[in-house]
């Protein structure tokens, strides 16, 4: 018999109350982990966006095209110091392709310029052999590894896509051959693109509309400071200001956070809410503990009559609260890990990957959740513990159980 064992027996005493308390802590923890994971994932969307990458688009709207010559002009541009303004430049056009056989499978498809695109997006890893096979095949495609898995596409598979924006000349879907896959470091949500040759798209257009692209992507030279990047963006826009199509150039993070900006206030609220949930659970727990302790006031008085100090009795109550909290925390952490990691994460990463690129329960989040739940549980025992320790012995003895 030890204080710990007695606290444990007391905790296990009322099975219904214990089950409810543990379930309460577990549910609060689940909510906490979900909210924290969403907030963390959200932050990582901005963190993963690159500062040194620039996106140049038509000034008014993303939908309007740019002349393809702009890419060559940008590549030729020198900065004041005489070096190239950008280290790499490439471009893409939105295709909006869909597999007519699977109209519910949504993924982004871009028409790109092969190798240069992968140079700008250097976190995309493509086997050199795949790049060569892609370059050699005008109807080749490079597909994100995650998308390929979802769709069951293998190398050499024929993929038919139709686009609402670009009807093919023969009214048949565009036919592509999968030539390889790319993997993306960090953002699994980015392994969702279907990429093919821009020439293919251009050739499908009437002659008058050829030679346009969706947007330019470029990367500033290594070691460029934030100011350098901003200056480069201004230089690009100034350069095209006098031309037939004006541009707007932003670094990727500004682009991303600008897009996410509004919702980040919501995320702040969620962040606060995640702690509020545990706070409320703490109050509920405090009430349950208070009830248990009141029912046993005679037993605590009896312990004190044997010579146990007020402190010892308070510790007994706190230990019990901690045990209930710990049990709830362990169950809750497991449920959260299962529900968020196995249930919600794939959904978020697949369908909301722009907002939540990496929806993963980190050990840090779990540890924080367990820690906060434990602290809350112990805190919930403080008032009952003090009440028990302070009770006048002779009065507590008289109280009939």
């Amino acid at each position, binding site marked *: *018999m*030890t*204080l710990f064992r*007695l606290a444990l*027996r*007391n905790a*296990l*005493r009322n099975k219904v109350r214990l089950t409810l308390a543990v379930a309460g802590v577990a549910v609060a923890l689940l909510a906490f982990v979900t909210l924290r994971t969403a907030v963390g994932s959200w932050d990582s969307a901005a963190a993963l966006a690159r500062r040194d990458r620039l996106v140049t688009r038509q000034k008014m709207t993303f939908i309007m095209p740019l002349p393809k010559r702009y890419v060559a002009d940008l590549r030729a541009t020198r900065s004041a110091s005489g070096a190239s303004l950008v280290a790499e430049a490439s471009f893409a056009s939105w295709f909006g392709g869909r597999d007519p056989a699977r109209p519910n499978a949504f993924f982004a498809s871009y028409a790109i310029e092969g190798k240069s695109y992968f140079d700008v997006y250097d976190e995309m890893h493509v086997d050199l052999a795949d790049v060569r096979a892609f370059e050699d095949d005008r109807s080749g495609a490079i597909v994100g590894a995650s998308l390929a898995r979802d769709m069951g596409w293998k190398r050499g598979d024929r993929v038919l896509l139709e686009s609402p924006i670009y009807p093919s000349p023969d009214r048949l879907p565009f036919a592509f051959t999968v030539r390889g896959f790319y993997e993306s470091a960090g953002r699994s949500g980015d392994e969702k693109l279907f990429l093919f040759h821009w020439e293919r798209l251009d050739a499908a257009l009437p002659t008058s509309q050829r030679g346009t692209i969706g947007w330019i992507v470029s990367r500033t030279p290594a070691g460029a400071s934030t100011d350098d990047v901003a200056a480069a963006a201004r230089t690009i826009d100034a350069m095209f200001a006098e031309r037939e199509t004006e541009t707007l150039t932003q670094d990727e993070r500004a682009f991303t956070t600008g897009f996410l900006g509004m919702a980040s206030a919501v995320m702040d609220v969620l962040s606060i809410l995640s702690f509020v949930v545990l706070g409320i659970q703490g109050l509920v727990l405090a009430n349950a503990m208070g009830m248990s302790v009141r029912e046993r006031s*005679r*037993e605590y008085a*009896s*312990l*004190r*009559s*044997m*010579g*146990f*100090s*007020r402190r010892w009795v308070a510790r007994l109550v706190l230990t019990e609260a901690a045990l209930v909290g710990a049990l709830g925390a362990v169950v809750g952490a497991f449920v959260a890990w299962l529900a968020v990691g196995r249930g919600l994460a794939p959904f978020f990463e697949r369908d909301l990957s722009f907002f939540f690129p990496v929806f993963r329960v980190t050990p840090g989040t779990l540890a924080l959740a367990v820690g906060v739940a434990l602290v809350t549980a112990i805190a919930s025992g403080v008032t009952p513990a003090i009440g028990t320790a302070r009770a006048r*012995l*002779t009065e507590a*003895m008289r109280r009939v*159980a």
Partner: protein
Amino acid sequence: MSASIELRGVCKEYLRGAATLPILEGVDMDVPAGAFQALMGPSGSGKSTLLNLIAGLDRPTRGQVTVAGTPIHGLGDGALADFRARHVGIVFQAYNLIPVLTARENVELPLLLGSLPRAERRKRAETALRIVGLEGRYDHLPRQLSGGQEQRVAIARAIVCDPDLVIADEPTGDLDKKSAEEVLLLFRKLNRELGKTIVMVTHDPAAAEAADTVRRLDKGVLQ
């Protein structure tokens, strides 16, 4: 091994609203070491109040309480708890066992206050249970015992630390005649064989006969 009790001019008042309610009014009492005294009196006469003062569960409003040579009327909470742990075993009418602990664990509980190793605590708890005639009931929970057996577990718990003094407040109040007799027999054994000083409050004249001396408390005055 045993304690004498000495009360001098002990007064106890309770506050009821603005009024003070005198319960004990100048009680003088001497219990020699090794005595077995019974305390009787009408309900509300202050018997439990007096017992609580002797046991160090409460402090008098005025007067001196000396137990086993220690003046306890001036002790602080911590010192008083220490005093109880060292010198007093208390038995209540309602047994006050911890329902989630077995007989042995209940008896072992007060030993946590000392520094005995686990095995030794267990051994002593079993010895105490043997003294009260409950060998073979070590692993029973209180609800698996009869009232008389529960009270005997409570007595084992009261003596497991080998106190000088055993205080009992109507220990047979909830028991049938036969169980009450067993408990009283046990008290006599504790008194005669183990030399414990015993003060027992009772309403039952038959129970009082187990003691050497019977004292009466009426309206806060000890006769």
